[in-house]
């Protein structure tokens, strides 16, 4: 009886088996890695906004302070997006005819709000509060990065639960004095190892309970 399978069938069978294994492991690996990719976390993705507002120009160039626009950051969980009127405090005087500002003028004229696209999205079961962070030594740039260098705001941190917990387990390396919260260039000083615990005590932070589920989920 003639051979049914040619010689290369063995090789083929091995290759298929190996391929299946690689596919399985690779597929699982992909599934596991997927949530950490920027596709899932939206890290470093620039989202198109209705107005090409540049933080680089306004903050880095002109030195407009964070709280000039994000007024509620110290009182509320929501930092606040400025109403159209805040834009018009300056832009009713300068660049009054700039094409790029047409949507702002239209918003004011038609009394229709500007629909910004949210960049930092947390799941609905996470309750994050800006005010407790900025009043307890966590600066803007710790989570938002160097906003003053971004022509278009993008999310620099992954905003995953693991990333939150890194700091909630050990906040000391990221704490700053109250005077430096809005400093965009803040880098941990060389003696942060000593300063951190002092700041923990100063703000009255008890890190051992910062990882309770009920801190962020309710």
């Amino acid at each position, binding site marked *: 009886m003639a051979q049914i399978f040619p010689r290369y069938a063995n090789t083929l069978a091995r290759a298929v088996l190996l391929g299946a294994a690689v596919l399985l492991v690779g597929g699982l690996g992909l599934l596991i890695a997927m949530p950490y990719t920027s596709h899932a976390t939206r890290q470093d993705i620039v989202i198109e906004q209705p107005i090409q507002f540049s933080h680089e120009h306004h903050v880095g160039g002109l030195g407009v302070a964070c709280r000039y626009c994000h007024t509620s950051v110290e009182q509320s969980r929501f930092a606040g997006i400025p109403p159209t*009127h805040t834009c018009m405090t300056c832009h009713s005087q300068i660049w009054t005819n700039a094409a790029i500002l047409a949507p702002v003028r239209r918003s004011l004229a038609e009394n229709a709000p500007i629909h910004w696209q949210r960049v930092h999205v947390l799941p609905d079961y996470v*309750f994050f509060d800006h005010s407790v962070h900025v009043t307890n030594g966590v600066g803007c740039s710790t989570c938002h990065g160097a906003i003053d260098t971004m022509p278009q705001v993008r999310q620099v941190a992954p905003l995953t639960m693991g990333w939150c917990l890194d700091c909630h387990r050990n906040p000391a390396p990221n704490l700053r004095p109250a005077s430096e919260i809005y400093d965009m260039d803040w880098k941990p000083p060389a003696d942060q190892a000593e300063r951190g615990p002092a700041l923990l005590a100063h703000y009255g932070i008890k890190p051992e309970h910062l990882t309770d589920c009920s801190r962020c989920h309710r």
Partner: protein
Amino acid sequence: MTDAPSLTRRQAALGLLASAVSLSACGKPAEEIVPYVEQPERIVPGVPLRFATSLALNGYGRGVIVSSIEGRPTKVEGNAGHPASLGSTDAFAEAAVLSLYDPDRSRAVREGTRIASWDGFLTALRPRLRRFEATGGEGLRLLTGHVTSPTLLRLMGQVQARYPAMRWHGYEPIGDSNARAGAVLAFGRPLASLAQLDRAVVVLALDADPLGPGPDQIRHARGFAAHRTARWENKAALSRFYAAEPVLTATGAKADHRLAATPTLVRDLAIALASRLGSGRPAPVLPPEAQRFLDAAAADLQSRPGEALVLVGEWQPPEVHALAHWINARLGAPVEHIEPVGPAEPPAPLDALIEALAAKQVDTLVVLGANPAYDASAGFAQALGGSGAFSVHFGPYHDETAALCRWHLPESHPLEDWGDLRATDGTASLAQPLILPLYNTRSAPWLLGALLGTDEATAHAAVRDTWAAQRPPETFEAWWRQVLHDGVVADSAAPRVTPPPSALPDLAPPVAPAELTLVLRPDPSVWDGCFANNAWLQECPKPLTRQVWGNAAMLSPEDARRRKLSNGDVVRLALGGRQIDAPVLVRPGTAPGVVALTLGYGRRRAGAIGDGLGADAYALRSPDAPWIMAGLTMEGTGGRTNLLFEQPDRRLEGEARALFPTVRADELARGESRPPVWPPSLNPDRVSDTHAWAMVIDTSLCIGCNACVIACQSENNVPVVGPDEVARGREMHWLRIDTYDLGPPEDPRPGFQPVPCMHCEHAPCEPVCPVEASIHDAEGLNVQVYNRCIGTRFCQANCPYKVRRFNWFGYADGQEYANQGAPVLAAQRNPEVTVRARGVMEKCTYCTQRISAARRSAEREGREIGAREVVTACQSACPSQAITFGDLKHPDSPITALRREPQHYALLGHLGTRPRTTYLAAVRNPNPAAEEGGS
């Protein structure tokens, strides 16, 4: 050729599907941030604003503080400065915010069945008004409910002045005509009496229910609590309550001695008591049990002059009210009298309007805040239908009356427009809008303005004008701002009047006892039917019976046995040629020979929630005896319906005493103060270095009113499941009020026990969760992490308190009951609390969002959380302040002392769960003399 385009469409569809799948699978959905164009002053996005306003029940105002989150009213709480709220609420006030967003609210002006416009209505009205100006308003009739609003009364006075021949009729299905008539008999004029329970030590309630639902419930509950707060350190005497009533009420449940008495016997008791106090009238012969009850009560009342009080319910005839006035005068009872709150001269009755309609004397009828086609006798609907009158209905729903009227005008919700109200003691309060009207609706001052010939009258201007007329203009603005802030007009309570010496009424000869007497009562869930379309209230278990989504004819077990009836049997109730079918509910504590039914059900045009539920008791009501009707016949129809309860009725074989212990006042005085003792445990003790939250519920004070249940529902986004799911034993209330009958069926002695999550230190739900979704936090909260929960329900099975609730369906998340998924209802949700999805377990969190808010505010300001800073929703609602919440670690927290009380106990404490929610046993203060007599 025809295939090609369809193939393209299919490809496009597949492409869309593929991109949708890939987008939804991995990426987060795009979200928008929409800031203001011009941010209003004082608004901080994310921080709620709170405004004082007023809500009405039966026309009487109750002050409330409403939270508004980014312009959306979400939660009602009490206003401590208002005498009818005292910082607490009742179930109706808590549920008002759901009615605001009710998808069934009327949104458009209608002429007949057609949608019309406000201008169209004005065009139709104007020629009539011109004619009325010539005739002085002959043929113009106004029908309202009970009106206490100074602004509406002022405007109606102006309308009356403009059209002198106009007649104003008033109709309130749950009025106070018996009490008024009783005052006329006793004092010669219709004075309103305000019982002061906080100054009464011995109280006899003759068919009266001061602790039951009503405009004065909160004030009475607080007064009741004043002398029932038994504390080890406070050795002041407790008050003693006696109640004689045909059907079990909250007052009867809390009474130390209760007699199930037919209405006739209640009347006889009043006559006998008056006779004992020297009325000189012959005392009727009482049955031995009633005689013993009266002997004990009379001796007790007489021993505490100045602190003894006799109360009579509105349901009793005027002569019994007059007797009570005479008795109270003899006892020097703590009752204050005021001139009736409302119009100086009472409006004409509804009967006169029905007669006029039938005689075709009515040209134009304006119905304002009344629904007589449903809640008055059938005569109204017939008379209106045949009268050919130009009828205008003004109300929030296109209800039964609206359907009969030629025009229907949609009314704004009380949270949408300006107004003012007076409380039962006459205190005036302002109502201010929390939100612009959601739909094209207007409020009553606009309509009265239209009758006065001004088309653009606003409620705001009308209310300001009313109050500005009484103040000097230079100080008015400051005064107005202060009143808006406080919610109450200071010192506006009606002046107390000293009544003339009360006369003894002439007593009608006793009527021959009937075999069956029908007793009607307001419903604790839907009141007179006006709350019928509120799903929270419909699903709120009624006190004592625990029934939801309907009413039933309540019978004593004795009558039920004799007639071979059981729960759910449908009977035909017939009275004076009128008849209805209603299911039977056997309720121990009902007097034999009495059939009790609550009003407010059988609505035909309430909306998607309220239509067709229960039996319409109004159909049996006769105008001359609205509450108690003898001569009822009842026969089984052979039909059965499934009555819905949230707490199944079952016998506990002696366990009830362990689950709901009671203590006698004298035993309590001998008790000792000690911290709670727990059984030994192999589980490691939790060492806490931070806050330790705990709750103590005083069952002596709980009156079972359900304010906490609705407050919890409104605060925590608890969904409604609907009658079908309740029938399957599924419910979502995080807080339930268990009711235990501790006595025999003839004297059930019920006790109320609110049961939230116990937050056990050794929680049985935690070790069984495979994903650690049920887990403890450092502050002692047993937290449920929704995003971890995979829905095994092991925790629910292992919870001995049965406080865990499972989302079998997306009750709040796409599979809502009836119209509860309407987008507008999303505006009511509390943004601080997750809306739970299908397949997730949930339960009481001790209002963890409120703890978190206090913690964050303390951390922001660099301070510690105050001893009374965290107030849970149930605690804030409780009219008798039965619920205390606090931090066991805080030196000033009231909770530690409560846990040392002698009557302190843990529910199922022997299981070793070490609950953080614990109870104070109900303290009873029976009269030793009556007990020896066997009562």
